[in-house]
């Protein structure tokens, strides 16, 4: 096929050559080429090997429906597999390679699959590799994946940037073919703000397949010029509408890879645009469908419309000897144009006659026409075709190097189905058309099955959309084409192929044949959705754009029902594949999710803290003063707190200001324990339940005045608790005079903990008396130092004497450094989250890992807390039999019994003599090395809980094949009497 490029014509700019690399070959194309057209021009015919049978495959289409010509683009981190060459705009420096051949695409040993094809029928892998042993599939799958499949992604990080953008418009027009251009112009003239999107890098759609010197081109140019002149019309080329969602919201993907050869420059490679439109016009056109016949996947077999597109757009004459086979009028244009370009053309039309006038045009154009004639098979790759002559039923052969086929046109109705409208079958057209549109949505042109007269159709849709969006200007008149409209044609062949030999492929990309569908039907997978999953039809990257309709037709035929009753598979976004990078946008790396920092964040960084993520927060994990790594540092920090005094940042705790005359009543209702009688100046630990009696959260609430409370929540559940309190006050308990405000960000919090905590704070805050009598355990105090409000809560998470100190966020660093500096003679040191969490495990305090919304008060050993005299949220449902079952998994402490072993979070617990298999009797929630016990300890949930205290059990960690012996003990490993708190 070398020399396919014509010396003149086409929409390529021969003055702008573009060099690119195809595997080891350095090739040149032109501006205006797609990668597919440039490769075809260079004589490349083998574009890859098929998914299952490794059959040689070439370009079939000229757009996003392409199933075969999938290449891997780029190198290193930019390597991207499975990119259709037909939609890739050629750019200088492009690098690409073929995929799915071993050892190479040109010489592929796995073509053996093609010879054993009878074994690889639908469901073969599942039937063969699923049993009899459990796990067989797991074992075989990697080998199958290697033999069958497409491109391979790289594991390097993607160096490119991707952006996300939000847009608004009055009228969104999707598709810039004749209908879309007309719609955009009409809406723009009417004064609407218009966004016209086109997946191609050129505007015109089907007009681009018409001769450059023809009248269609003049109209196209005139419309483009007018669009340019309309101030409120924005045109996005290289932009695919991926999906349509409720509320006329569309997801668009703008591609910029052609303009961003170097990621270091920072230009985005792709931009995901979310656009809200007051009205939408679908002008997405139609996709030509192939015919089914033997070996219809041979290189050289293309869609007839694609042959014409390559001829007029890219100046490619892909065969001097061509056969065009069709069941409708549209392919006659291809035949005539090929003949005009100098090819010898035979036209096989399944119908006994074509529309009026075509026969005469074919005769004048020198096209040999055979009616009532059907393809039997392709010969060679490609040497000719064997076909069946209608009247005589005789088999004939015609040599050719190019075979253009047309099975009719199927509306690209994918987007219109995304919001739930089922496509409707139009028997007269022989295809599915979009289901009913919701208000404000319109369709025009081929997507509606209206192939003739897109100008007036588009114009009317554009005007209606503009009106719907509130524009009132005149839309003027539609284009009145001066040329004779090409007869439309969408009649699809409903018959099974009368083929001879060879496979007839329905889905080229996934190698699904007519036989596979028949087998699926025989085995009971009759419905289209079932047959799809059994055969993988339509599940490739092309999502069956040229296979679903033929399959639906075949399956309906096999069942003996009408195609409208068989229906279609469900269309879901995205319309074409979208990179993960584009979906992620800038939300990668440190922008993956929002990060919350405490007011002391910068101090931590400057003073040797190693930070860790705790939910959305960054918190100090450990400090380097204590050790070079977490494993040693947290132990030193624990000892610091147990033996001397430490300071830790607890600003991330949820903090809620609760005020109002009914605040006491409110707290009494939400906490299981009583708060109404909490004296001013005191704090109390409280637990909240969900309505279903599972534990929602715990925390400490302090009373600073008659109507004024300061609630703290866990870091993890702060937002949920806040919303829950607001929900109760705004929907259920509107009569309570209470206001709640989140003050989490308003206060910096720090905990001074350890036997020397009081001494340390007395050095830091000599202004206040902290003596045990003045500020006993669970007492609170608020005061001002130099006008700065300070709150001190004497409470402990670690089990040591401890105080929480709160100051306004902007005074956090000042208070923190004041404590550290003034208490320096006592040896105070900061400690991090790892030590904090370990100290609480030793003390047996539950935290986020235990508060997983599945456990009850009693599961956590907190049942005694609940009031017996007042109502509280969740009280009634606590008594459900399921929740009072003594065999529920409940909180236990675990002590490791093996000196050299460790306990692991998530380990599954089994009784001592039990075989460690299955879900076990519980699991470990939190683990640490206990400095006071000198061994690993853990908190966990165990069936029957502390009734089994003293028993030896087995902690299994199947991921590592580990089993460790442990003993069930009280979760209060340290100072169970709480003597250290009352000093």
């Amino acid at each position: 096929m070398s020399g396919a490029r014509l010396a003149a014509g086409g929409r390529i700019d021969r003055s702008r050559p573009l060099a690119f690399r195809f595997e080891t070959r350095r090739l040149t194309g032109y501006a205006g080429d797609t990668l597919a057209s440039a490769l075809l021009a260079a004589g490349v015919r083998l574009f890859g090997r098929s998914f299952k049978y490794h059959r040689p495959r070439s370009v079939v289409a000229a757009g996003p429906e392409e199933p075969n010509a999938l290449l891997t683009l780029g190198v290193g981190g930019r390597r991207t597999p499975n990119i259709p060459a037909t939609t890739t705009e050629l750019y200088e420096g492009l690098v690409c390679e073929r995929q799915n051949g071993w050892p190479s695409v040109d010489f592929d040993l796995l073509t053996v699959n093609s010879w054993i094809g009878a074994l690889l029928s639908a469901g073969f892998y599942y039937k063969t590799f699923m049993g009899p042993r459990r796990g067989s599939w797991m074992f075989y799958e990697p080998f199958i994946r290697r033999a069958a499949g497409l491109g391979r992604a790289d594991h390097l990080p993607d160096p490119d940037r991707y952006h996300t953008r939000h847009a608004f418009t009055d009228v969104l027009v999707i598709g810039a073919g004749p209908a879309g251009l007309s719609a955009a112009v009409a809406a723009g003239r009417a004064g609407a703000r218009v966004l016209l999107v086109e997946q191609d890098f050129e505007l015109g759609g089907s007009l681009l397949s018409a001769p450059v010197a023809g009248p269609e081109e003049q109209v196209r140019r005139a419309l483009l010029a007018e669009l340019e002149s309309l101030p409120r019309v924005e045109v996005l080329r290289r932009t695919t509408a991926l999906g349509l969602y409720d509320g006329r919201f569309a997801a668009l993907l703008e591609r910029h890879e052609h303009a961003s050869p170097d990621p270091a420059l920072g230009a985005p490679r792709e931009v995901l645009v979310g656009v809200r439109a007051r009205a939408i016009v679908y002008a997405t056109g139609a996709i030509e469908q192939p015919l089914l016949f033997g070996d219809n996947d041979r290189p050289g077999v293309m869609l007839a419309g694609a042959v014409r597109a390559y001829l007029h757009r890219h100046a490619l004459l892909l065969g001097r000897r061509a056969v065009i086979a069709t069941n409708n009028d549209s392919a006659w244009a291809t035949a005539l144009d090929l003949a005009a370009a100098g090819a010898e053309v035979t036209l096989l039309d399944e119908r006994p006659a074509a529309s009026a006038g075509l026969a005469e045009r074919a005769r004048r154009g020198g096209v040999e026409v055979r009616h009532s004639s059907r393809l039997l098979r392709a010969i060679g790759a490609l040497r000719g075709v064997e076909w069946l002559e209608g009247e005589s039923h005789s088999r004939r052969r015609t040599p050719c190097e190019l075979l253009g086929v047309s099975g009719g046109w199927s509306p690209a109705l994918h987007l219109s189905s995304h919001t739930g409208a089922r496509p409707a079958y139009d028997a007269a057209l022989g295809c599915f058309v979009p289901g009913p549109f919701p208000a404000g949505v319109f369709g025009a042109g081929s997507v509606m099955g209206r192939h003739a007269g897109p100008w007036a159709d588009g114009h009317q849709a554009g005007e209606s959309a503009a009106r719907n969006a509130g524009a009132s200007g005149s839309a003027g008149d539609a284009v009145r084409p001066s040329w004779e409209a090409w007869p439309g044609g969408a009649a699809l062949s409903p018959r099974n192929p009368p083929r001879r030999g060879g496979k007839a492929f329905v889905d080229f990309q996934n190698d699904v044949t007519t036989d596979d569908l028949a087998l699926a039907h025989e085995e009971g997978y009759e419905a289209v959705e079932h047959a799809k999953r059994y055969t993988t039809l339509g599940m490739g990257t092309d999502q069956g754009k040229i296979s679903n309709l033929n399959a639906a037709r075949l399956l309906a035929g096999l069942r003996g029902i009408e195609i409208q009753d068989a229906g279609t598979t469900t269309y879901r976004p995205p319309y074409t594949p979208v990179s993960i990078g584009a979906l992620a946008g800038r939300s990668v790396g440190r922008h993956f999710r929002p990060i919350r920092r405490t007011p002391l964040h910068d101090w931590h960084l400057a003073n040797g803290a190693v930070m860790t993520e705790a939910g959305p927060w960054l918190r100090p994990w450990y400090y380097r003063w204590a050790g070079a790594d977490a494993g040693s540092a947290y132990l030193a920090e624990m000892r610091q707190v147990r033996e001397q005094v430490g300071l830790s940042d607890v600003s991330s705790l949820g903090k809620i200001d609760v005020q109002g005359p009914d605040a006491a009543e409110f707290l009494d209702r939400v906490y299981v324990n009583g708060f109404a009688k909490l004296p001013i100046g005191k704090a109390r630990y409280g637990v909240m339940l969900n309505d279903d009696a599972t534990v929602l959260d715990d925390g400490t609430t302090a009373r600073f005045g008659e109507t004024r409370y300061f609630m703290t929540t866990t870091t993890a559940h702060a937002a949920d608790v806040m919303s829950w309190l607001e929900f109760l006050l705004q929907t259920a308990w509107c009569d309570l005079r209470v206001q709640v405000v989140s003050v989490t960000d308003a206060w910096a919090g720090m905990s001074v903990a350890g036997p020397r905590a009081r001494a340390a704070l007395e050095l830091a805050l000599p202004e206040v008396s902290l003596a045990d009598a003045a500020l006993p355990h669970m007492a609170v105090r608020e005061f001002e130092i130099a006008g700065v409000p300070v709150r001190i809560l004497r409470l402990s998470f670690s089990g040591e004497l401890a105080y929480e100190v709160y100051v306004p966020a902007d005074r956090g660093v000042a208070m923190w450094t004041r404590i550290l500096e003034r208490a320096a003679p006592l040896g105070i040191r900061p400690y991090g989250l790892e030590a904090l969490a370990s100290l609480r495990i030793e003390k047996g305090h539950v935290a986020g890992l235990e508060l997983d919304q599945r456990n009850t008060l009693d599961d956590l050993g907190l049942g005694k807390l609940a009031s017996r005299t007042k109502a509280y949220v969740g009280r009634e449902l606590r008594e459900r039999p399921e929740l009072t079952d003594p065999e529920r998994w409940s909180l236990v402490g675990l002590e490791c019994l093996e000196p050299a072993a460790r306990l692991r979070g998530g380990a599954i617990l089994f009784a001592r003599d039990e075989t460690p298999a299955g879900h076990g009797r519980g699991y470990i929630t939190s683990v640490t090395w206990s400095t006071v016990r000198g061994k690993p300890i853990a908190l966990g949930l165990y069936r029957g809980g502390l009734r089994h205290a003293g028993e030896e059990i087995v902690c299994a960690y199947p991921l590592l094949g580990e089993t460790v012996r442990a003993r069930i003990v009280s979760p209060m490993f340290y100072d169970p009497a709480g003597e250290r708190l009352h000093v």
Partner: protein
Amino acid sequence: MLRIPCPHCGERDYTEFRYGGDAGRTRPAHGSQSVRAWHDHVFLFANPKGAHREYWQHVHGCRQWLVLERDTATGSVGRASLARPPGVP
């Protein structure tokens, strides 16, 4: 992508809101000792197709709980009003 007309803040994307379930149900009075009433309230949900009144909280806006009229079949959104009765601060 729903757009919710917040009576305080105007029409906003639903991503600014938190969903709160069926607003047509009445929560048992606080202190009600009917386990059956609480059970039904917590565990029994209708899943209506069509008109639905539902709670949404404008968490990234005014923090108010709203009652939104929405058609579950079409996703189309109607009026949104404050969940708290008028006159309650």
